Structures are given as C-alpha cells and as structure tokens.
C-alpha cells in the first residue's frame, strides 16, 4: 500500500537485525554529514547505493519515485543559495561563493537522503517499533505508536475508498467541490478512526485486553560478524575521505 513499506517487507535484508542496518546506513549518514562534502558525501552515497541496489535489492523505480519529492526540496533550497539579496551588489545579485555552497549543501543532503532511504527501504517499521522501548521510551507510548502504525493502514484504505467514491460522483471536478469533498472526507475519516478504536477495544477485550498490549517479540541475536561487516563501510568511507583531505590535492 505504501511502496517503501511494502519493499522493506519483501526485500532479502528483511531478516537482518535492525541494529545491523542501522549501523551501516546510520554510519554512512553520519559520514555524509560530518566529513568534508567532497569526497566524503560522494563516497557515502556510493556505498549506500551499492549496498541498497546490490545485496539488499531495493527496487530502483520505487527508490527514484520516493527520492523525487525530497530531491526537489533540496534542489530548490540550494538554488536560493545561489543568489544574495539586499547586499552591497544591489537588491538581487549572484552570491559570492554561491555555486560552491549550493553544490556542497545539495551534495551532502542528496547523500544523506540516499542513506535514509536505503534504511527505510530495508527495515520494516514493525521490526523497529518494538525496539523503541530499548531507547528508554515508556512501554505505553510505544504501544500507542505501534497501534498508530497498524491503524494507519486500515484508515488509509478507508480514505482511499471514500475518495474514490467521491471522485465517482464528480466530487473533485471544481475547486469548490474539492474543498467540500475534502471536508466531508476529513470528518468521515475522523468519525471512522474513533469507531475503529471503539471496535478494536471490543475485539481485544475478548482476547483478554486489560490495558496493556503485550506481545511476544521474537528476539534475533545480533551476530557480531554482521555488526563488524556493517561498521566496515562507514569506517572505510571515513578513512578514505580523511586521507583524501590530508593528501595535497592535485594542481
């Protein structure tokens, strides 16, 4: 239903412990953010893409579609860095050093985006949420988050069907109709979400619900070898980028 979510469940890395994927892509993300943008960010992006499209077999088309919106944000944001306003050179002028700054910012962000997306594309939220308690979050809060995740799909389904029904009766033909339809949709989905909560309480009571939603989480041990393998790429990227920074650049 949501492309990233569906791919995360289907991918071959589904079985890897989230900590391993977190170490790999999180490490690369940190590299992209703190190392000199060239070649640090470029190497991080390369490593993330190689891991994602290689062994993790992330579907490239879904990846591109997901990357489209944030890339536009990054590009447009970077474009504003090219110009300077209200400075000594007139109301609007090319910013000194603007091109380099824009390239650096967008390069860094693009690399970070690759790392984030590859993590999202390989790690189902259902594997991640139960582990939030490890971060010190109260169990009750984690349960609310997990319920949100489950109900989101039920509600999303309802929303799409209501919207299709409205469109069938020409509810999105004019702007006025669109606003009216969205208002009706928002209200209907709100009522439905409360109805869902009520019905779920009824359904869970029969299964012994007493206020806590305890479930048995299958603990997969983290293999030390896997962690080492996951630490290696970020380390290599860091070493390579720092070495390139120390060695005198040609020319």
């Amino acid at each position: 239903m949501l492309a990233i979510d569906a791919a995360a469940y289907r991918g071959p890395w589904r079985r890897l412990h989230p900590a391993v994927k977190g170490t790999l892509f999180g490490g690369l993300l940190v590299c992209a953010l703190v190392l000199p943008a060239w070649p640090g960010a470029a190497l991080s992006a390369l490593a993330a893409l190689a891991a994602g499209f290689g062994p993790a077999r992330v579907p490239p088309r879904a990846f591109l579609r997901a990357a489209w919106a944030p890339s536009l944000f990054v590009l447009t944001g970077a474009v504003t860095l090219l110009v300077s306003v209200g400075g000594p050179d007139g109301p609007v002028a090319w910013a000194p050093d603007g091109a380099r700054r824009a390239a650096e910012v967008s390069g860094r962000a693009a690399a970070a985006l690759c790392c984030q997306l590859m993590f999202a594309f390989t790690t189902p939220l259902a594997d991640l949420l139960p582990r939030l308690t490890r971060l010190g979050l109260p169990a009750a809060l984690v349960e609310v988050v997990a319920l949100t995740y489950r109900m989101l799909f039920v509600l999303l389904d309802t929303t799409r069907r209501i919207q299709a029904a409205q469109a069938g009766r020409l509810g999105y033909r004019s702007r006025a109709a669109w606003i009216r339809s969205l208002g009706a949709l928002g209200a209907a989905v709100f009522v439905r979400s409360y109805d869902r909560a009520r019905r779920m309480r009824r359904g869970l009571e029969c299964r012994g619900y007493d206020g806590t939603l305890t479930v048995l989480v299958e603990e997969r041990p983290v293999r030390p070898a896997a962690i080492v393998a996951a630490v290696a790429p970020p380390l290599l990227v860091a070493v390579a980028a720092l070495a390139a920074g120390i060695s005198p650049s040609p020319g």
Partner: protein
Amino acid sequence: MTHHTDPAAAPAVLAGRDLVFGYRAGDPVPVFSGVTVEVPAGSVLAVLGPNGGGKTTLLRLLAGSLTPDAGRVVLDGTEVRPTRRGVGELRRRVQLVFQDPDDQLFSASVAQDVSFGPLNQGRPEPEVRERVAWALAALEIADLADRPTHLLSYGQRKRVVLAGALAMRPDVLVLDEPTAGLDPEGVEALLATLGGLRAAGTTLVISTHDVDLAHRWADHAVLLDRRVLAAGPARAVLTDPALLSAARLRPAWGPAVGAALRAAGAVPATAPDPATPGEVIRLTR
C-alpha cells in the same frame, strides 16, 4: 478463453478492451491483463470470479475510478480519453456503487448525501431537489430523507448509496457485490428494486460470486480470474461445470436441479430451472 457468441446482444454501451492493471508498487505480476468485456445496452451483465480475481478492479476501470495501465475503455463506441474531461464524462454516465456502503456515505443526512453528485454536476438547486426526491422514491426510502446516515441499518445504507448513484442519472449502474451482507429478505427487496431500474432501461453490471444469483438474474456473464475465462449469455456460461470450476466457483443449484428433475421426469422436459428452493418445495407438495 471461451466466447459464446450472442447474436441477440444489443450494441455495447460500455466496453473494456485489452485492459491491463496492476504493474504497481514493484509488483512484477499485474492484477490482471488482456481483459476485454462488452456491456450490451439495456441488459444485466454479471462478473463472476474468485476473490483476488480482479472483479472490483474491472468494475472500477469500467467506471473510470481507476485508470488502466494499458488498454481502452469505450463508451458508446467512443474511446474514453484519459483526460479530466473524458474521465469526467465516463464517471457521470457510469455510476459505481461500492460493496461497503460506509465508503460512500460521508454526509450528515440522507438527503444531503444523495444531493452530493447532482450538486457536483452543477445542476440548479430545484433540479437537484427534484432528482433527490426521485432517487429516494425509486429506492423506496423517501421516509429516510432527513435521517442521519449513521443511524441507518446496513440494508438502508446500501439503498441510500444506490440512490446517490441514481441521482446522477447514469446510463450504466455498476454494482460491486450488491447482495453481500444482506439477509435473504434484503436480497429479494434489492433485486426487486434493481428489476425496476432494469425495466426502466438502466444497464446494470454486477459482480458476485453467487452463481445462483447470476444465473437467475443476469443476461450476460463474464468469468474472471486475472483474465477472462469465459464470456457470453449467462445461461450458457453459468451452466458449464468445467468453466465454473476453472473460475474456482461452485455450480449453481438452479440448473443442476432443473436438469435432474427433468431427467427424472418429475417435471415436463420443457420446464424451466427452478430459481429458488421454494419452487422445488412446491413441486413435491
């Protein structure tokens, strides 16, 4: 694919040709492919098949609620163009009624909900009011007009949704599992109402996995399981056990019992198939 030719069929008011859908979300296999159906004007077409076979998808494609990945939808002989205008015209003339009435009821009161479509069509207020009254009367729920939708029974909500579609004055009414969730009395009442619409000239497309219902009620039938397994006159398509089994459906009681009773001489050789168990019981009295 089995195609029974049907010389008596009226020209198709609506057709889907070589429809393909579902190459989405990284799925390598489409929901269905190469689906062609014709909806003869003024008749009832039943679409049958197992769950997941694509019945709802086909209905939504025909009503302009989904856009095919490939193939064409043809309305009155003219291909529907995938523009705002083309799809708008298709949606106006072909009204889809979903299985779950709650997906289509989003206004506070019954009359308000039924007026949603005509208002969006930009009809003047007196005409909208007149259409709402007419649609509520056609479904025999004029007394519910001012009721809040969430206090209605399931059967009543199904009727309100149908009235909402009817108020658009469509040429074709497409109903996804119209009898699902109704009790026998509700089914009979709905069929009586639909019979009235059919007599008034509305073309109907219904999806179902109730072969008895389709056999008793449809003129034409399509068996669908990710592709068209058979299409043609309902009587021919729905009495072929091999075809039905290929579509993972159960044969209908009516024709099976009719054949057995005729063979046993319990009824004359020209007697029609019984439509309900009641008719069989009357025989043995």
